[in-house]
């Protein structure tokens, strides 16, 4: 599903001394099946922007249009919309509440009023997709590890089979192993379920590895929306916004000082490797 913001603005606590313009006149289209990485300095309005996509926040002015439907125009459309947009909040493991993992994952599908058998199938598939062993089904979510709990929360959203999946810093607070597993899972899911994915992250390596587009926000405005290669080639501009570049880009800059010049739009170690092999001789077996 495509997402279109039209002149969207959002003001928190209007007419008070704490008034904040979190989103400032955003016009932007995100195409179907895109995997968008959303980056920006803290407080730049990333979370606020994505919460408009399933009408958790209402625009102060402007519109959000999803597949040619203005989502705030019609109350009945809201329920349908929420079926189609899955939202994984920051630290989603804090939202678990049921006695067993199985029941918690089934909460969403149950609210969709699906038949029992269908729910059971979905729970099973969601657990498999996020890499949870079937044995944990009957355990309490509160006795699992943090990483496992996050998988349960993610499965709870996946089980609703959303067409748009929004993830707010899905890897925050995970250990490197858990992070890699999470990323691999997202990649697989994006391919398999043909979803449009928007992932907020502060880790540029993740963004470089996964995303087809990068959206950079600054002070409530989208300043860059482009392919990762093109975005991360503008290292100085990003640094001015308090943002980092991926490790690979840093490597390229370091190599530049040693007079090894690699184009900055290369993003994976593999590509760097073969580029050096090709252009600077040496053998490829290393």
């Amino acid at each position, binding site marked *: 599903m495509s997402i279109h913001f039209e002149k969207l603005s959002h003001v928190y606590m209007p007419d008070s001394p704490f008034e904040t313009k979190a989103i400032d006149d955003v016009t932007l289209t995100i195409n179907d099946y895109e995997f968008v990485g959303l980056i920006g300095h803290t407080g730049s309005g990333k979370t606020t922007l994505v919460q408009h996509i*399933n009408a958790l926040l209402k625009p102060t002015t402007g519109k959000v249009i999803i597949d040619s439907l203005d989502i705030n125009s019609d109350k009945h459309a809201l329920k349908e919309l*929420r079926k189609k947009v899955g*939202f994984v909040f920051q630290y989603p493991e*804090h*939202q678990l509440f049921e006695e067993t993992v199985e029941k918690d994952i089934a*909460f969403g599908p149950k*609210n*969709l009023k699906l038949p029992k058998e269908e729910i059971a199938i979905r729970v099973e598939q969601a657990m498999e997709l996020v890499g949870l062993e079937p044995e944990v089904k009957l355990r309490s979510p509160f006795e699992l590890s943090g990483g496992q709990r996050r998988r349960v929360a993610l499965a709870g*959203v996946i089980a*609703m089979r959303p067409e748009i999946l929004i993830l707010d810093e899905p890897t925050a607070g995970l250990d490197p192993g858990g992070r890699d597993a999470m990323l691999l899972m997202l990649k697989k899911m994006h391919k398999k379920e043909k979803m449009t994915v928007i992932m907020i992250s502060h880790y540029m390596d993740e963004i470089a590895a996964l995303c087809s587009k990068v959206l950079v926000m600054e002070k409530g405005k989208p300043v860059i929306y482009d392919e990762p290669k093109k975005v991360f080639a503008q290292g100085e501009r990003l640094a001015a916004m308090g943002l980092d570049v991926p490790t690979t880009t840093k490597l390229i800059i370091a190599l530049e000082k040693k007079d090894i010049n690699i184009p900055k739009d290369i993003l994976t170690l593999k590509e760097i490797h073969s580029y050096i092999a090709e252009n600077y001789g040496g053998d490829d077996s290393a």
Partner: protein
Amino acid sequence: MGVMIVLKNITLGQFFPGSSIVHKMDPRIKIITVFLFIVLIFFVKSFYGYLVVAVFVAFVIMTTKVPIKYILRGLKPIFFIVIITFVLNTLMTPGDDPYFSWKFISITPKGLKQASFLSIRLVLLVIGSQILTLTTSPLGLTDGIEQLAGPLKKVGFPAHEMAMMMTIALRFIPTLLNETDRIMKAQISRGADFETGSLISRARNLVPLLVPLFVSAFRRADELALAMEARCYQGGTGRTRMKVLKMSKYDIYGALAFCVLIALIVLDYILAA
């Protein structure tokens, strides 16, 4: 999204930051002044007296630079009480020369006067205490209360513990509100419904919100207790403060202005007697 709108409108202790003389006054002086002000209002005997108080209050509000809108917003909850007080007092006070009378109901000059006085008193009372909470940060307030209640420690009143509890509660209200908002949104996007249905089904629908909220509150309490212990917190005895409440010239200005008001009210009292 009814509940969310409610959450959005709760401003913490309604503090309105600023740098006016009133803001800079020592919270202790402000608390005492407001207390005296409330007592004082009950001694006003004439319309002129109320006029003086009203002018004084208006003057203070102007000095604080708090938009009048905020003061009015604070009056909203007592609006009905004022109306009811006024109507009942007007109708139920017996007196001479009624403008209108029917059975035990009558409208008399005395009734009207009494009703207006009571309503004005109520409004002034609320505005007075509002000026205190609008111009004093919640932390300043608890600090002030703790110090003012200090002498009560001698008779075993846990002034420090009370103040610490209030401070911690105040500190965590925004955190828990944020958390509520986030969990609520998370469950709404999983299809939870917090707004429709019968009373019982609504109560049941709150479970997905309340369970995570309690879990997180307990976790935070645990962490905070640990952090406080790790920094050797052991209650109030022997504890010093980084920011000691100090009186300044602003307190003298405030106190002087208030003394003028007292003098005028005393004058009003004597003249009316």
